[in-house]
C-alpha cells in the first residue's frame, strides 16, 4: 500500500500536535525538539509504502514514547487494509466459482 503525500502531512501534523501536548504535560522538553525534528524530516519524505511508514513511526515511538499512539493508529490502518484486501480476494474467488478456496481463505482470515 502506498502512502500519499497528504497522509504524510497528516502524520507530521499529528507529530507536532503530540509535541505540543507533551510539552504541556512535561513529557518532552524543548531541548528534545531539534532531534525529533531532524529525525522526522530526514526520513518521512523517503517513505514510499505504508509498511515503511509503520516502521518509521515505530522507530519514532521507540525513541520518544509520546508518539506511541501514532504508531498504533498507523498499525490499525495497515491491519484494516489487509482485511479489506482479503475480503476483496474472497469476493473475487466466490464470484469466479472457486467456492472451496474462498471458504478456505475466509476461514484462515477468521482464525488469524
Amino acid at each position, binding site marked *: *500500500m*502506498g*502512502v*500519499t503525500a*497528504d*497522509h504524510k*502531512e*497528516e*502524520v*507530521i*501534523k*499529528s*507529530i*507536532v*500536535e*503530540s*509535541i*505540543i*501536548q507533551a*510539552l*504541556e504535560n*512535561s513529557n*518532552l*522538553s*524543548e*531541548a528534545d*525538539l*531539534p532531534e*525529533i*525534528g*531532524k529525525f*522526522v*524530516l530526514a526520513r518521512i519524505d523517503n517513505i514510499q509504502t*505504508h509498511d515503511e511508514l509503520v516502521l518509521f513511526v515505530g522507530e519514532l515511538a521507540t525513541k520518544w514514547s509520546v508518539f506511541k*499512539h*501514532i504508531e*498504533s*493508529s*498507523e498499525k*490499525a*490502518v495497515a491491519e*484494516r*487494509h489487509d482485511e*479489506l*484486501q482479503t475480503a*476483496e480476494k474472497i469476493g473475487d474467488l466466490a464470484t469466479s466459482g472457486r467456492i472451496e478456496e474462498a471458504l478456505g481463505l475466509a476461514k484462515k482470515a477468521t482464525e488469524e
Partner: protein
Amino acid sequence: MAEPTPSSEAVVRVAASEKVEKVRPGPTNVDQQRANTLRVEMAEKGARKTLEDTISLTPKKGEITALIDENLGTEIDPENGEKVRKGKQRTEHKTAITSVDNLFAYIETGKVSTDNEVQVRADIGEIFRMYPGAEDIIRELGSETITDSVLNDPEFRVKLQERLTEIKGKKVAEIDPGAESAFKEAQRAEAAKQREHDRLKGEADGVRKGLKSFDSTEVPPGEKSKRIDKLTKTEIPKLEKDSKNAEAKIRDLDRRIKSQETTRAHIDKGAVKAANYGELIGELDTEIANLEEQRDEQQAIVDTYDEAKSEKEQLIQEKDDLRQRKSELDPQEDRVISELDELHEQTAQAEVAFARAKKAHSMQEREFLLSLEDVYKDAAVKLYDDRIKNAEAAQDAVLAKELEKAKDGLEKQIMDQFSGKRWDEKYTKHGILRPDRQSVRIKSDVVDRDFAKLVTEGPEATVREILSSKNSGFTAAEIEEKMKDPEFKKQAQDMLVEQLVTRKIKTGKITESEAFIIGTSPWGAEVIDTAIAKNSAVQNSIDQLRDIGALKGDGVMDWIKNHPNKTFAAMLLSAIFSGGLALVALPVGLGVAGAASAAGGLGAGGYGIRKAA
C-alpha cells in the same frame, strides 16, 4: 477495490488533536511558552514548517523573558503564586528584561538601542582586544570602526541567536525545599530541647547553690555549714547543759508552785478566814506568779535547746534533700546537654546544607545573569573564531590544490616541506571539562629562524636552506635538479612565503617593517597578488578599496608604499594570509560601506601584528 485512504482515519485517533486547540493565557514556563509558540506557528505556517523550525529553534523573546522570570527569585507570594523580588533581585530582574528587550530589538532591526550602545560597543571592543594585534588596528582605525564592522554584520546577529539558544537551556534549579524544611525542623527541635535544658539547669543551679551553703570545704565555708558547725560544737552543747539545769530548776519550781498552790487552796478553802486572808492570798499569788515566771524563764532555756536541735536536724534534712535532688538532676542534666549538643550539631549540618542549596541556586542565578550580560561578548567570540576557522579551511583547500600540482613523488615530498609540516607540531590538548583531543601548535622558534632568513635573503635562499637541512632527506643533486625547473621553483617559493608568513602572523610577532619588506619586495608582492586572485572575498575587498581610491598606484607594492597607514602592509598580509582581524577592519576603516560582510568569508581572526621594536 479502491485503496483505503488512511489519512483521516489514522490521524483522527490522535489524542492530542482536540486539546491543542485551546491556547492557555500567558507563559508559565519555557516549555509551555514553546508549546504556545508551536501552536500559533502551526496555525500560521502549517505543521511541516513548524517542525522544520524546531530544528533550529531560534529563541523567541517571550521564551527568554519567561526563562528570566522562572530563573530569578525564589520567594513566592502565597496569595497570587507569583515571584516576589525585592531590592537587588528586583533590579537584576528588571535589568535582565530590559537587556533582552534591547537585544531582540537589535536582532530584529540591526540597530542598537541608545540605552545600551555604549556597553555593547565596550563589550565588542573588549573581545576584539583579546586577539593579538588588535590594539594596533584599533589605534589605526579607531574602536568605533571595529565595533561598527561587527554591529553591521548580519552574521553577528546570527551568532547572538545561537548564543541565546544556548542560554535558553540554562534553567536554574530551585532551592531544594527539603533543605529548608529540614533546617527549620532542626531549629525547632533544638529550641525545644534548649527550653528543657534551661528549666533543668535553673533547678540544678538552685540545688548546687543550696548545697554550696552546706559545703564546709568552701573558702569561706558555706553559711549553713557554719551554722551546723556552730550548733554542733558550741550552741547545742551549751544549751544542753543549760537545758538540763533548767529542767532541774523547772522540776523544783514546779514542786514549789504546787506547794504554794496547795497552801493557797488550803487557806482559800479554810472554814474561817484568817484576818489577813486577803493579804496571805495576795502574797501567795505573787509568789506563785513569781515562781511561774522563773519557770517560764527556765522553760525558755529548754525550748531554746530544743529549737537548736530542731534547727540542726532541719538543716541536715535540707542538706540530704538537696543531695538527693542533685543525684536525680545530674543525670537528667547530662542527658539533656548531650541531646542538646547532638541537636545543635544536626541544626548546624542542616543549616550548612540549606546554605549550600541556597548558594548553589544563587551561583546558578549568577551564571545565568552573567550569560545574559555577556551575550554580546560571547557572540563576538563566536563570530571571530568561526571566521578564523573558515579562513583556515579556505586556505587549507587552496594548499591542497597546490599540492596536487606536484608532478612526481620527489616534488610532492619537497612541497610537503612547505605545506606546514615543518612549522607545525601535533600535541594532545588535555581537557578539564572535555575529553583530551589532538591539536596543532606552531613551532615558533623554527618559524622565527626561517622568517628571518626570508626577510633578509629572500625566498630562494630560504627554500634551499630548508631543503639542505640535515633532516630533510633530500640529496644535493635532487635539490639542484628540482631548482632548475623554474615552474617548480616558483611554486615552492610561493608556498614557502604563503605558509611561513601565515604562521609568523599567527605567532603575533610580525613587525610593521617586516611586513613592509615583504609587501614591497618583488617576490612578496607577487605572492600577495596571487593570493588575492585566489580568494574571491579578498578580491572583493581589494576591489572596493580600489574603487574608492583608497589604494593608490598599480599593484601591491604601490599600494603599500603609497598608503598613509603604517600598519597597512601588515594588515593586508594578515587579511590575506590568516583571515585575521585586519580584513574586516581594514575596508570599513577606509570607508567602504558593507565591506565587513563582504569580507565575512575571511573574517576577523586572532592574528596580529606588533610594532617594530
